[in-house]
């Protein structure tokens, strides 16, 4: 047990709520694990764009002598090569959330399910809106995962007679969502529901609706499981009837399992998909983390 291990953790920087939560969980987990296992060291790097993330991983390999890497790829394609290089150097690789574009590189895969994320929300819409109902969508930053979510959502409501009026980019940002929603409200006299696809955006949307005085007209479904939204669901707020999880805490599981691989003999490799669950007033309490910044 004298051997020390270094684990690199490379994630996107905290540019929006979800990533902020993920950053918080990563740091929190690292702090906790470092206290438990004195012989494990962690190297955390955050990147604002794919190129920088590749730089970070290169640096970890070249200067920090990492034994394992936990990576949440900014984008799948550009990170595939560099992560493969880590693997080829004989290191342990854990991939989180966004799969690499080439199968079989990672030892461990921990992820949320973007298709399920869109699908669960879509199914809720299908089941709770009459045919002919009108909805608007706020999309995230243009990325593959955003496409997956929206496609899954649209597939889920396909044939239900629900009409999608519009889908603009709110960039997972409260301010942008506020603006887009204001303009939706000017443009469409009747909106029955909003899929905001992210809890940060949901907050911006709610504000715009409140300002327009149309609070009773429509409900909103966000996503990811931000504590404020979960709280509302828990309290039975009619405006936010449900939420769909996409837990930022998945990074904790990934880091923990990777650490376990080094400090114990436990077999941890494989794929762990953390499904997206519908948070309802009944089950909300189990998704509520008041200490997290997200």
């Amino acid at each position, binding site marked *: 047990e004298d051997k020390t291990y270094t684990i690199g953790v490379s994630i996107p920087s905290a540019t*929006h709520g979800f990533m902020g939560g993920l950053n*918080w969980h990563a740091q929190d987990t690292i702090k906790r694990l470092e206290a438990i296992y004195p012989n494990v060291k962690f190297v955390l790097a955050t990147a604002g764009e794919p190129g920088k993330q590749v730089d970070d991983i290169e640096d970890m390999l070249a200067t920090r002598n990492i034994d394992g890497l936990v990576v949440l790829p900014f984008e799948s394609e550009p990170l595939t090569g560099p992560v493969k290089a880590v693997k080829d150097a004989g290191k342990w690789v854990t991939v989180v959330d966004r799969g690499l574009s080439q199968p079989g590189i990672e030892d461990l895969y921990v992820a949320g399910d973007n298709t399920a994320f869109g699908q669960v929300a879509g199914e809720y819409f299908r089941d709770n809106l009459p045919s002919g109902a009108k909805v608007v969508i706020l*999309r995230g930053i243009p990325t593959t995962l955003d496409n997956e979510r929206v496609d899954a959502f649209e597939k889920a409501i396909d044939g239900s007679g629900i009409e999608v009026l519009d889908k603009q*980019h709110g960039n997972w940002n409260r301010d942008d969502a506020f*603006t887009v929603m*204001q*303009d939706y409200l000017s*443009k469409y006299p009747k909106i029955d529901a909003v899929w905001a696809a992210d809890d940060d955006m949901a907050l911006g949307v709610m504000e715009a609706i409140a300002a327009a005085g149309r609070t009773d007209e429509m409900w909103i479904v966000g996503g990811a499981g931000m504590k404020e939204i979960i709280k509302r669901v828990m309290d039975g707020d009619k405006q936010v009837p449900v939420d769909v999880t996409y837990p930022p805490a998945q990074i904790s599981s990934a880091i923990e399992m990777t650490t376990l691989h080094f400090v114990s003999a436990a077999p941890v490799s494989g794929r762990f998909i953390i499904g997206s669950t519908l948070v309802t007033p009944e089950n909300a309490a189990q998704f509520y983390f008041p200490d997290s910044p997200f």
Partner: protein
Amino acid sequence: MRNLSLSTLGPLAALILLVVLGTFLNANFLSAGNITNVLARSAFIGMIAVGMTFVITSGGLDLSVGSMAAFIAGMMILAMNAMLPTLGIGVPLVLAGMAVALGVGLLAALANGLLITRAGIEPFIVTLGTMGIFRSLVTWIADGGTLSLDFEARQFYRPVYYGGIFGITWPILVFAVVAVLGELAMRHTRFGRYCEAIGSNDRVARYSAVKVERVQLMTYVALGVLVGLATILYVPRLGSASGSTGLLWELEAIAAVIIGGTALKGGYGRVWGTVVGVLILSLIDNILNLADLVSPYLNGAIQGVIIVLAVVLQRGKSSAEGR
């Protein structure tokens, strides 16, 4: 004079064209609600851009305003949450929050201004540096997440964004006042005159008994206070601040200033042109949301084209030769 009138009317013409276009595309475009929305949203960037007009006119530049806004919002929220137990919810709390915002804005800008005027470092570098510093600090204070104003306090503070008098909301009123005062300051006060003189030729200004460093410092400080003011109106809107608050506001503010006809090299500032520039930028976004485009992916492209066209309208070949 001939030249002036052309370049003065240019941005206005672009603005009018956009309004006409918006009206065609969507009947609700001219509704009171939409107009209020657009104007109120423009107010933040607007106030900042008015301040930026002075900085650019006197030959400076400030890239840090967006992150400064985030930083001020963060500090303001922290301060208000901290003072809540003592002051209780009410006007004193809000006033204290506002004082903090203006104070932090002033200090942050003073840091920029002193590094630029006393240490003599290029404004681009100084404000690029502080841009990173301010934004990092917010993210750090917020622990990567969002700083939120206490719910009750926010409910009390909310009318500062959404409320108003005579059916005009506060952000619009404050923006209008700032714009008018800015125009006055630029055209009719020594400060504005000195900004133009310094931007035109700082040695001449120095030889003519203008306190060049002091005026330059004042432009940065004024900008900082305006960023503080913008933040005061921004915080009640969503009640939160995070690392992504005010992202790219600097670019938008500078773009508004240049679209409005102020020269990037300094020497010539037009505050009301800046106001028109801000409105043009807001309207582009609004119209893109109201219209049904082929693909929202192309929003950026259309924005780009309109920005360039707005300026083409204003400056033809002829005036390019003149300058």
